[in-house]
């Protein structure tokens, strides 16, 4: 009975969501004046919409060629700090709660191909990951995918070597990367005028060393995400034995 009710309600919910999304307009004219934003502090109305602003001025304002990166790290960098923190919180929570769990059965050894192969591949995986987050302001990608790639390298190692554990080093990386993010933000507050504001010359857009603090933050995020995900996997493995 309860299951039936659940199914019916889920069905109604699904249909109503579909109707709702169907109702959404298919395309937008971003330059139409209904999207013109209004500054809440002084009440002035601009003659552009916010997406339009991002498209037009990203390069000048942040020096990043990749507009998505500029939005993630600069315009909405505060949200990104928050997201990184969510990840961190989740990792901390998992390790906190799993710390008392009982160890399970032993796992059998991996075979030779996996062991040797993973050794061989690991440097390349790490390099790719690093590349993705270092070049975040130039090419698609950035800290989050880069970090995930790095973590996948360590996951491979864990699969290959049951005794492969990363004890304190990983939490050191976690802390250092997170701290770096906040410190960069605070430096912005000290050296420029606001938190997370760019305080380094933006340089020439398109160059590796450009876009001010974006690459620095992305490197920090890369390390952070990489170590965080590895730590979660590590912890789970520790529990499973």
């Amino acid at each position: 009975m309860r299951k039936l009710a659940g199914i019916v309600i889920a069905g109604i919910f699904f249909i109503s969501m579909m109707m709702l999304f169907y109702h959404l307009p298919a395309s937008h004219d971003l330059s139409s004046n209904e999207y013109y934003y209004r500054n809440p502090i002084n009440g002035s109305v601009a003659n552009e919409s916010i997406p339009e602003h991002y498209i037009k001025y990203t390069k000048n304002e942040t020096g990043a060629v990749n507009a998505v990166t500029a939005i993630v790290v600069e315009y909405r960098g505060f949200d990104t700090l928050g997201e990184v923190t969510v990840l961190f919180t989740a990792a901390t929570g998992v390790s906190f709660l799993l710390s008392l769990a009982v160890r399970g059965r032993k796992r059998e050894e991996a075979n030779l191909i996996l062991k040797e192969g993973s050794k061989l591949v690991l440097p390349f995986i790490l390099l790719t990951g690093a590349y993705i987050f270092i070049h975040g302001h130039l090419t698609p990608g950035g800290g989050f995918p880069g970090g995930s790639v790095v973590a996948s390298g360590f996951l491979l190692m864990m699969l290959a070597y049951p005794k492969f554990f990363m004890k304190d080093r990983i939490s050191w990386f976690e802390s250092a990367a997170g701290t770096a993010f906040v410190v960069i933000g605070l430096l912005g507050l000290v050296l420029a005028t606001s938190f997370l504001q760019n305080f380094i010359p933006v340089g020439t857009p398109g160059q590796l060393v450009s876009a001010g603090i974006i690459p620095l933050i992305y490197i920090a995020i890369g390390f952070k995400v990489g170590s965080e995900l590895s730590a979660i996997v590590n912890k789970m493995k520790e529990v499973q034995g």
Partner: protein
Amino acid sequence: MLDIILAEILVAAIITFFVGRKLAAIIAMAVSILPLIALLDWASLYGFNIIHLGIEKSISIPIAGVSLNLAITPLGWFFALMIIPLFPAIMLFSYSFYKKNDGFYPFMLLALLSSIGIIMAKDMLTFFLFWEMMSWSSFLLVYRSRDKEAVMSYFIFSSLSAFLIFLGILIIYQQNASLLLSSINIESNAYGVVAIISLIAGFAIKSVLMPLHAWAPYVYSKSDEPFVAFLAGGLSKLGYYGMFLILFILAGAKVLETYFTNLSPNYILAVFGALSAFIATLIAFMQDDMRKLLAYSSIGQLGYIAIGFGIGTPLAVSGALFQAFNHAFFKAVLFLAAGAVAYRTGKWKISELGGVGYRMPFTFMATLFAIFTLAAIPITSGFAAKWLLYESAIDAKYIFVAPIMLIAGVGAFLYSFRILYGVFLGENRYPNIKEAPKSMVAAMFILVMPLLIFLIFPGYMLDMMHDALISGNIATLNHNAFVIETSLASYNTIAVIVALMIALIPAILIYKTRKHRVVDFMDNYLAGELPELYDNKISMHAASRFYKPIEEIIGPYFEPGTMSYYMAIYRGLKAISDAVRKIYTGKAGDYAIYVTLFLLIIMGWFIWM
């Protein structure tokens, strides 16, 4: 000066929290001197030139962004006269009553502080704020009893009272857009009537009018006597202060009369008062616990005040205020006496006591006088007050109320006789106890003094309430110090005393001329009774089930008790609570369904409504 008074009480309340019991009692007594002086000083405003210091009359206290306005009014002053003087006497009593200081003094001081706030409030916010403070400080005093029924019923009934009063205040505020008492004008419509009725019901809870009295027997019989003396003597009057305020000063009585054209709601108040007086008296017959007996006696005696307010004529209201004043003092004395007896004997049950008066003569004397006043024995001020009330009921042709009052008046003597005989006289069961400590005796005698003064000069009482009555648009009676003129006859102290003397002389002569023989208690009691019960001294006791025949007749009618009806409501609520709790099934899946369903419903409601 008013602010200094309030501040010193507050500071004393904080200090007494930390010091030992004796010092606390002395501090509490000391701080109540200043209000007493102020009372005497203010007396000059109302025709009594005793001292004149020029103490100013109004202040405002800033708190949480608003200011509380307090001012001394004629009515406030009159009620202050019956609340403030009780306090130092009770503190004096408590000096040797308590073994340790565990929260009695600070909360008593807070109760005093809030009582002063209530009777001097200039606006409804101040009134309500102090009312609530009085409720919780007295609750904490009840709480010291650790008795489940007392604690719970007092807290719940206090909240009920507060909410009823709050409802009334809100409606009045809506009608006037003002909370100042001086600018309030209750409209004569359904809302106005609801406001008045809910205010009166709220006040009736505090002044234990039946059927809202259910908490009182528990609280009065389980809490410490010094506190109960203040609760029954002083705090219960605050409810009548509120009623006077609403009915007369804010002209609620007129509003009710104009709204209900062919039925007089005032009459209903008088009937409730009369029933209170009558039923409580009958129940008091059957009590074996001294404190419970006094509790029901309080309910009965306070009912008279409601009768007076209900009748609403000058005669009736004067009588009611007189009765309020008397009750404050005699009931305080009686509870203190119960405390003193219990202090020496450790017993409250009348059937376990007896002969205490031989060893505690001064306590007995104070009690005797208080009981005379309670039972309205002629020439006491209690008689004067009840005389006015009886006369007003007859005068107003309240044919239901007047006889009931008379029966209840006789009943009052019958049950108070049990205290006299069962506790203080009869078999001398406690030959080794001592008289109560001097401080206790002194306290009781101090409280008896006002009753003596108004025994001789009942007219002064009318002088004191003169301005209060005027402020409530009630005419005052013609009077001088000894004589009160009424429409039917006049009450003349001298005449009453002379009449009493004439009646007493033959009685004394008869008493003196007969020979007396002191017999053993068992001697006269056993005549013709069941000898096998001889060993059971309780059942042999003259005061045990003293009114057995009456009890057997009326007892069954009071079997369930008012509380059981309230308990039925409480159980009903608990059943609802049980049903509501079933909503929380404890299954995450159900909760997820709730969330989704809620979203769908409000989305649908928004979009299609």
